[in-house]
């Protein structure tokens, strides 16, 4: 068994694994140290500085997301002094952030909003004047699936790291420096870049800076709190079988997120996240079609199955087994594909079987 370490946070004994940082150890013990740039899916950034703590015997303040917990450590995480620094940091963040929550897609689902509420930082309680309006920041909505609103960006790098470390694409980086820092693809416009629109970045964004375009309901923006139901299911596209959370209102899909489980651990590709619009498409086939006199006509399943079976038997007897070939779909489950090749080999009697992913 892995060795455990023991240390204290504000006097409370904490047991943790030697791999834990102070932040993760605290979390496992029910202590939530405020943070914004921390995302357990990607490497540590230590940029927001909200999770600073004091460690006995070491001068200064330390970001708990970057400090490994060690045996016997005495950590202070919620003294007045530390909370005062956090409040100032949050106040600063809010001064550079377009806090138009009323009109924000992330209203109610925003980590900054939550912290501002927690620290009671309404506009009247802030010390710093809003400066975001004077900054000439470049927003970008040229992507087909994403909107980047630079006035809301808190420069936490979660998007940049998600694209680089989770998707391995490295599309995003920062442009400019200091207060002018913004996220960029490095191209004048997002849609000129190599971004394929997987949406990993927006899923990592803690605020309303990088958001999905409302592709499922173009005329009706939806917030998290409007969603009626979220169903975890398997993506119907390729054979990987990614787990996705499909959110619906009134039985219509309004958004899709990656579900954090095997095999995709929260990621999806552009098709899984943005390509499920066929589900509610008016032209979607809901019944089998049989061509009669050169025209497709709707049929019942029993009729269609019988027609297909009859034709297969006829072709096989007249022209032999090898005159039939079967083409399966990577969108079917493994089990379905197994059955299909079995059917082709033992019932139809041919090895002419393949599937779309090989083409």
């Amino acid at each position: 068994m892995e060795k455990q370490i023991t240390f204290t946070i504000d006097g409370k004994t904490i047991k943790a694994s030697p791999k834990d940082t102070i932040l993760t150890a605290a979390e496992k013990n029910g202590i939530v140290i405020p943070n914004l740039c921390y995302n357990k899916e990607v490497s540590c950034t230590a940029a927001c500085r909200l999770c600073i703590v004091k460690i006995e015997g070491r001068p200064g303040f330390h970001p708990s997301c970057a400090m490994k917990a060690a045996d016997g450590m005495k950590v202070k995480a919620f003294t007045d002094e530390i909370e005062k620094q956090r409040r100032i940091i949050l106040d600063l963040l809010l001064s550079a952030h377009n806090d138009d929550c009323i009109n924000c897609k992330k209203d109610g689902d925003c980590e900054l909003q939550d912290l501002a509420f927690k620290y009671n930082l309404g506009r009247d309680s802030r010390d710093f004047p809003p400066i975001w309006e004077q900054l000439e920041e470049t927003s970008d909505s040229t992507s087909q699936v994403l909107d980047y609103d630079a006035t809301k960006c808190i420069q936490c790098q979660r998007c940049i790291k998600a694209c680089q470390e989770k998707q391995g694409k490295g599309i995003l980086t920062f442009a400019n420096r200091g207060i002018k820092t913004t996220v960029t693809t490095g191209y004048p416009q997002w849609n000129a870049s190599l971004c394929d629109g997987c949406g990993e970045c927006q899923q990592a964004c803690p605020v309303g800076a990088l958001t999905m375009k409302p592709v499922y309901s173009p005329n009706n923006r939806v917030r998290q709190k409007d969603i009626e139901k979220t169903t975890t299911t398997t993506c119907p596209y390729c054979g990987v079988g990614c787990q996705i959370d499909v959110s619906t209102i009134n039985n219509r899909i309004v958004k899709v997120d990656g579900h954090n489980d095997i095999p995709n651990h929260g990621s999806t590709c552009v098709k899984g996240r943005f390509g499920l619009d066929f589900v509610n498409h008016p032209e979607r086939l809901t019944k089998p079609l049989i061509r009669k006199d050169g025209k497709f006509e709707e049929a019942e399943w029993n009729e269609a199955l019988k027609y297909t079976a009859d034709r297969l038997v006829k072709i096989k007897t007249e022209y032999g087994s090898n005159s039939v070939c079967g083409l399966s779909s990577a969108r079917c489950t493994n089990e379905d594909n197994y059955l299909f090749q079995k059917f082709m080999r033992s019932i139809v009697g041919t090895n002419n079987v393949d599937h779309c992913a090989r083409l």
Partner: protein
Amino acid sequence: MMIKSLQELSEYTEELSDSRSNTGDINVLVSLGTCGIAAGAEEVHKAIRKTINENNLGHRFNVIETGCMGLCFCEPSIELEDTKNGKSIIFGNVKPENSEKILNTDFQSEPKEIDIIEKGWYYPDEAENTDNYLQAKIALRNTGRINPEKIDDYISHSGYKALGRVIQDMKPEDVIDEITKSGLRGRGGGGFPTGKKWTFAAAQSTEEKFVICNADEGDPGAFMDRAVLEGDPHSVLEAMTIAGYAINATKGFIYIRAEYPLAIERLELAINQSREMGFLGKNIFNSNFSFDIELRFGAGAFVCGEETALINSIQGLRGMPSNKPPYPAVEGLWQKPTIVNNVETFANISTIIRKGHEWFRKIGTEDSPGTKVFALAGKIQNVGLIEVPMGTTLKNIIYDIGNGIADNKKFKAVQTGGPSGGCITPDYLNTPIDYDSLKKLGSMMGSGGMIVMDEDDCMVDIARFFLDFTVDESCGKCVPCRIGGKQMCGLLEKITKGKGTEKDLRILKSLSETIKNASLCGLGMTAPNPVISTMKYFAHEYEEHVYDKKCRAGKCQELITYSVIPDKCVGCTACKKICPVNCISGKVKEPHFINSDKCIKCGECYRVCKFNAISKS
């Protein structure tokens, strides 16, 4: 020619001194650093050469093109040195037409119309006794004395001897031990013990390790590293190679800003010369040890001087710092153990090896042995590059070496440590300066910038000026520095415009504490220093701006009112003519009047009035 042993090196050195006896006895040292060249040193150099050629004086004179002597206040400068008797004389503000007079000097009488610079600027490396000199040159020992483009010049000044000794006679741990015992501390700003840093890196057991020389020198006003690289590049190459031997690295990088083209050119030349003679490359001094150095160029971001940002930059990433730990000595370039040292730190190494730690410790103070190079600037007579033993007082530096405040003004404060340092007031002029004493005063050593301020400087405005720089250079990664710095600038601006309130002063104080406490890297942590220290030592100036809406230095435009003193005004109309917004009225020979509602406070009237009849309050 390849040098394969210490024996061969000393034979070669002797050959060099023999061949020298064929040239003239009198060395003519022409300072050809970037600053000297900008002041016209190349023309002077040509004129000197021409005079020697035309008058067939080649047998008497030996012209040496050197790096910067540090005499910025009187460039172009030339030193004549009689190698027979050691006599020397320095000329400043030299013009090409002075060359004949200079070459005719008898070292006694001073030729008129050329400035003679008092000696005492130099205490060459070889002297054992520092007492009679204000300065002591270790890092700058060769800068301004040798031709940086000739490896032979470096070799004849004991160059590469330390490297030979290290490889032939010392184990890596002995080298580190010697550096540790010398007490040398990093000259790049932090003052971290160099020996300790090397020990950490040496203790790592990875196969690959790196040595990096930090030549980014981003502090505005600091140019000591440039002077060393332009004036004595081999000293850095030799030291890096010694460091490589000590920690078992085979590769070094010099990260140098692209704005230093002359330094880059001389470094490239020096690296090639050093490779040709076998001081770099495979099997140095016929040993198993191999080491080579490459240059990497920085694009001039101040933050890229921070070691983790520098490492990211070399790796081709955005130059942003990373949280420490892990420290570079454990996990640095490409995650391998890496020592990052400053140019000046390296420039000390070979002398320490050659002369031993005991010699080094005799100079400077107990906790900060050795010397420090300072770039003297601001309202001081002798602007320039100086090297003094640690523990020298500010008074010595400003009044004895710097020759006091320019234009007979009153000394107000001196900013040490560059834009992220703090100011020191007249009360503390007698403090012996070293890393710890400066820190105690709320300032820091930094890379050695020293900016002198006089009574005309407004301390609130100065704080804003320095902060503007750091805010501009913030990489934007962490919140306190990125947004906090900007907000702090806003508060200072408000105060200098007379719009500050008591609450602003309070916020300014707590904000500067937060930026200092919570920032990720040294840039943010030290950025509020000018504010913190001016608020401490010049609290009254802040209060005057906020409560009395007054700027005693008359710097903050919005707080000044210009008016005519009727008794003094003779009605010459000069002010009326120059005022760009025509807000001055009055007839000829009658007292004039300034309409302060329209006045834009440009100060032109004040400047042109010959009768002191304009008051500024």
